[in-house]
């Protein structure tokens, strides 16, 4: 048997296959289709301080090889999470990582602090990249100073593994990855969705009630892969790869680009058991290629000779 274990900061995952925030509920939604306990981790739907109703409908639009969403962090708030959801998570033998969001710095800090007390939650993912809320989210994640500030503030109160989720809607991923590292993050995860838009030509209206939404799915994979590769070469903390993964090959590509673990988002909607299929595909690949540990894949990319002569320097 190949060794599948990977480390994200102090946190050990039994394998690198995890599910992305907002795309897997809190796990139970998928329990009819697969064994949740086989996952390396589950990243929960965003948790905010208060109950949030999210944005008006329509919140979804299909696009070529992808989709837009403008859910807008709908969730019942951190108290509900602690009292109603957290207790049910113990039934699964996997790691749950809470996706922490907020509209203000204080909200982020408060939620992180509350979750720090939960023994069964060994890590949070700080979501400073949601493009679907007026305040917070991407507004923090696309400004270097705000990003550093919120990460530092959360770092002060949060003593377990702190993962910062980066926005792709920036000029320089290396700059934001470094900001996260310097501000005390134990890992970065990327990408969140790309700010995008769909229009109904016949009705001459935007499809989404919020006009813009976040693009996810296979369409964004090439962009995500580039950003993960850039982040890997810019920081010394682990990188978690996200964006359009729907096959073992996709997952392996992200690990070769430098990801220590990967998250599967939109693909769950199309194939509810896709995460287990990806895990099995990775195992078959490792055996076929004679690797003894999945960690040997991380950043294991043979670079074409002299490629640096041809591309703009981004890190």
């Amino acid at each position, binding site marked *: 048997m190949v060794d599948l274990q990977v480390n994200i900061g102090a946190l050990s995952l039994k394998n690198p296959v995890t599910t992305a925030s907002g795309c897997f*509920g809190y796990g139970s*939604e998928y329990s009819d289709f697969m064994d949740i306990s086989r996952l390396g981790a589950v990243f929960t739907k965003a948790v905010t301080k208060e109950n949030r109703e999210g944005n008006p409908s329509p919140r979804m*639009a299909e696009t070529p090889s992808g989709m837009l969403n403008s859910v807008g962090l709908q969730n019942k708030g951190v108290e509900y999470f602690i009292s109603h959801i957290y207790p049910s998570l113990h039934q699964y033998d996997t790691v749950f990582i809470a996706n922490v969001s907020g509209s203000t710095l204080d909200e982020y800090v408060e939620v992180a602090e509350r979750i720090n007390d939960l023994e069964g939650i060994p890590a949070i993912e700080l979501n400073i990249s949601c493009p679907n809320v007026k305040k917070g989210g991407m507004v923090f994640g696309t400004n270097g100073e705000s990003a550093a500030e919120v990460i530092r503030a959360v770092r002060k109160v949060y003593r377990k593994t702190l993962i910062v989720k980066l926005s792709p809607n920036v000029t320089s991923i290396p700059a934001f990855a470094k900001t996260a590292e310097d501000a005390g993050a134990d890992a970065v995860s990327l990408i969140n969705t790309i700010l995008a838009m769909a229009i109904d030509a016949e009705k001459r209206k935007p499809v989404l009630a919020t006009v813009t939404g976040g693009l996810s799915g296979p369409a964004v994979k090439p962009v995500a892969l580039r950003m993960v590769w850039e982040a890997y070469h810019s920081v010394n903390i682990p990188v978690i790869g996200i964006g359009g993964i729907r096959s073992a090959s996709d997952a392996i590509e992200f690990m070769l680009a430098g990801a220590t673990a990967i998250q599967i988002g939109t693909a769950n909607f199309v194939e509810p058991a896709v995460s287990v299929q990806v895990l099995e595909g990775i195992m078959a690949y490792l055996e076929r290629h004679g690797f003894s540990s999945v960690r040997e894949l991380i950043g294991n990319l043979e670079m074409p000779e002299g490629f640096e002569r041809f591309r703009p320097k981004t890190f």
Partner: protein
Amino acid sequence: MVKKKIEDFLVTGNHRLNTEYFVLTLRSEHSLPAIFPGQFAELRVDHAGNPFLRRPISFFDVDREQHEIRLLIQEVGAGTQQLSMLDPGDTLNMIYPLGHPFTMVEGKDFLLAAGGVGIAPMLLLGRTLKQAGKRPVFLFGFRSEEQVFDLSAFEALGEVYITTEDGSMGKKGMITGHPILETGIFDGCYSCGPEPMMKAIAKIADGKDIFCEVSLENMMACGIGACLCCAQPTLHGMKMACVDGPVFNTKELLW
């Protein structure tokens, strides 16, 4: 709760009703789980990845003995067009059964009012009502005669009234103008179709103070309550059309 399944069905029939509608017949190797009227399935249209997402389609009919289900589908875009080209012998992957079904309530006489492809869930609903000893009355609206198809399966269950917008068949106009709405005495009504139609039906039901359930459409990505895309605001907060619906009691809606 019935466990949701993901399963490859065998296409055993694909029958064109008219230029817009067709009926797919699908067979399972296994006995079917309980399927209630108003529930739906998420169909994987294509394995090449385009369209990318699954398509939600209601159960039109269920034959438990043959392990067969039937779907009534209207061709509107790329996904339903690809479904229309399925041939017997092909397979179709489905996640099912999904959603909160129509509710059975006290009373005897029920109006089942539907427009266009909103007719789809009404056959199973009519049959279930009839089996429970109730009397379903169907009121269906079409654009014109060309859209109308063989309704004998409905006629076997109860009276069927028809309206067409151009008057080419049945009563001219929308179903909301049909006299049965005034003259008929119902203990409740069920509706599926364009939103303005359902709202009008809901208003009439409200006026008569009778039970009314509607099946709502919404853009769905997952169909199982995971993505929170199909939000429906209600009196009791934000609900998800795919798990809390698609059937809602109109009293709950902020209409």
